[in-house]
């Protein structure tokens, strides 16, 4: 899947990516880091990336901030205004999964609630290197390093997992009866 995405993005965006920076209620930490990657130290214009002011000119939306309730329709409109094909980067923990505010009353719960997020870059805020790494991952320049980790203390001789499954099924039946 990641390899396919990288290939597809390399085919869909053969030239420079133009970025549109969309702040949907962020604390400005991620925005400062996004501006930091444009400085001479972390020069992303090496890869042809450029910040543009309008979503109509952009290929990529850099979404920062948990999408708050007032900004939700605006983020959707900005996404619809972008010409297809388009990518969305969720920059920071808020845009990636909602951050600390994922279930508060005035937050819709992360960028995924408003627009389909193609790449998420967690961090609070992410280092400029982490943002560059995410962009390079989308461009297919670097391999992906993160993978799901599953650890077990004991491998059971008895099948406790099957028993648990049976327990869950019983509970489902009880729930059905209650309804």
């Amino acid at each position: 899947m990641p390899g396919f995405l990288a290939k597809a993005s390399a085919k869909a965006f053969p030239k420079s990516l133009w970025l549109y920076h969309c702040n949907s209620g962020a604390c400005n930490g991620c925005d400062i880091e996004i501006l930091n990657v444009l400085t001479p130290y972390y020069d992303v214009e090496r890869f042809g990336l450029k910040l543009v002011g309008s979503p109509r000119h952009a290929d990529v939306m850099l979404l920062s901030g948990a999408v708050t309730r007032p900004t939700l329709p605006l983020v959707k409109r900005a996404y619809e205004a972008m010409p297809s094909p388009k990518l969305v980067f969720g920059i920071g923990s808020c845009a990636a999964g909602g951050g600390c505010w994922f279930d508060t009353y005035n937050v819709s719960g992360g960028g995924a609630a408003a627009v389909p997020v193609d790449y998420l870059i967690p961090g609070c805020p992410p280092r400029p290197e982490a943002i560059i790494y995410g962009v390079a991952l989308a461009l297919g320049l670097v391999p992906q390093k993160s993978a799901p980790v599953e650890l077990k203390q004991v491998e059971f001789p008895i099948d406790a997992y099957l028993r648990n499954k049976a327990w869950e099924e019983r509970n489902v039946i009880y729930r059905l009866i209650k309804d």
Partner: protein
Amino acid sequence: MWLTSKFRQIVLALKPGTVTLKYPFEARPVPKDFRGQPVWDHTKCIGCAGCANHCPARTILLRDLCQEIRVLVYDGSRCTYCGRCADLCPEKAIAMSPEFELAAPRREDVTQTLELFMLTCNRCGRCFDMEIPNVLDKLDLRGYRYDNIETRTVLRRTTDRMDPAALDETEAARRPERIGG
């Protein structure tokens, strides 16, 4: 005049040289005490759920699958890397690694899942961990059952570890008298 100022600009621009880092093609070390992704050591974890209770983003979730298995899921997508879980872990099972290259196309790629083996408390019926020598184990509490998978009815021996001399001293202890009272 304008030409000399242009020359001066060129000289000024040449002076610092190239400062751009070759980051994605060269490794970039993190500063000291950098808090990256927290990493769980499943051999040390006792399943006390302290990390899950204190996580500000509530990104560490615990659930008892059955009496013996407790599952801890860390969803890194909304982790703010505050390091509170690593600070308060009583067994130092959580370490903040210097890993920051966590960009992923899917949310599942930044998750960690731990399956912890727990035992049953004889009093409350909820599960706790006694396989690993921990604080609870050292206390040798009366009334807790040591139920192994193979032999489920082995009762744990209880030893009275109270020092009689210390007990006498405590009994005889008196509060300091009020001054002038």
